[in-house]
């Protein structure tokens, strides 16, 4: 509480600190879903190519596509974290 009041005396510092916190939250939050999603995509691609090794090529191409679509959300968060400015 004391620290917060001290910081509040200097509004600029408080704003800079909160901006940094916001950036962290934005990227951290944006990474949760895609992290789980990429895990599912790759896991299922491995399952597919283990069950049917002759279709491994097709599974790999589709896997990269799936990763690209899933990963885009995390990257939006990454860019947004830089766009946020105090």
């Amino acid at each position, binding site marked *: 509480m004391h620290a917060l009041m001290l910081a509040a005396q200097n509004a600029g510092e408080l704003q800079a600190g909160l901006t940094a916190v916001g950036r962290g939250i934005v990227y951290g939050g944006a990474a949760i879903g895609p992290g789980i999603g990429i895990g599912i995509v790759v896991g299922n691609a491995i399952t597919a190519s283990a069950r049917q090794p002759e279709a491994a*090529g097709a599974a790999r*191409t589709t896997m*990269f*596509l799936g*990763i*690209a679509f899933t*990963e885009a959300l995390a*990257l939006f968060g*990454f860019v947004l974290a830089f766009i946020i400015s105090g």
Partner: protein
Amino acid sequence: MHLALDFPPISHLIRWPTIFGSGMWAVNKVVLLEWLAVVLLIWFFLAARKGALVPSGVQNVAEAAVDFVRNEVILQTIGPEGLNWTPFLLTLFTFIFVCNIFEVIPVIQMPVNARMALPFFMTAIVFFIYHYLGFRHQGFLGYFKSMLFPPGVPKALYLLVSPIEFLTYFFTRPLSLAVRLFANMLAGHLLLATFAILTAALFTATYIGAVIPGALLVALYGFEVLVSVLQAFIFTILTAVYIGGAIHPEH
């Protein structure tokens, strides 16, 4: 022990001072690298045009690249009728790859695609191409019909599906295509810079402390080579998917 570890602001890592020219025509390191990439590609394809029966050297690499784009990108996504798109997609793939690989080449160490200009420009080209193809192959109304009303959806759901599909085609696709390439290269660049700064700071403080971040830095260089290839591949294959979707819609 005080560790002299102050990370420079992001703009110091990606914004380069103007070398010559001014205003719109200002030329800095990034522009020079783009020109270098163009020159390298022209040399590459001219050297590969010899057409010797037994390929060697540059021709070997070029034929492998053509083979890769044809078999892994076009035949997997568009099908045989997309083969006349090989030159465009091959140029796209090699150009993006060369621009990306500048990231890990010593002394240069700046991925051109870590600035938004080039990904945005290439995405604009792709955007116009696939919409033009859609209009030409399916007609104006037919294209919008196949875009906004995908078959096999219950009638009531079109209220929800059509706006989403419209946003996907005109907003999400180009945005994600450009941002994916840009953000991946920017993230890689920042990652390498972070570890290099960390290694340097630990090396000046304690020699032994720099071993682990130094080793990680080397490993990350290898990883970034992989990312460079992968992002060029993904940009190309997504372009092929969009072109394929415009040429023959789902039934």
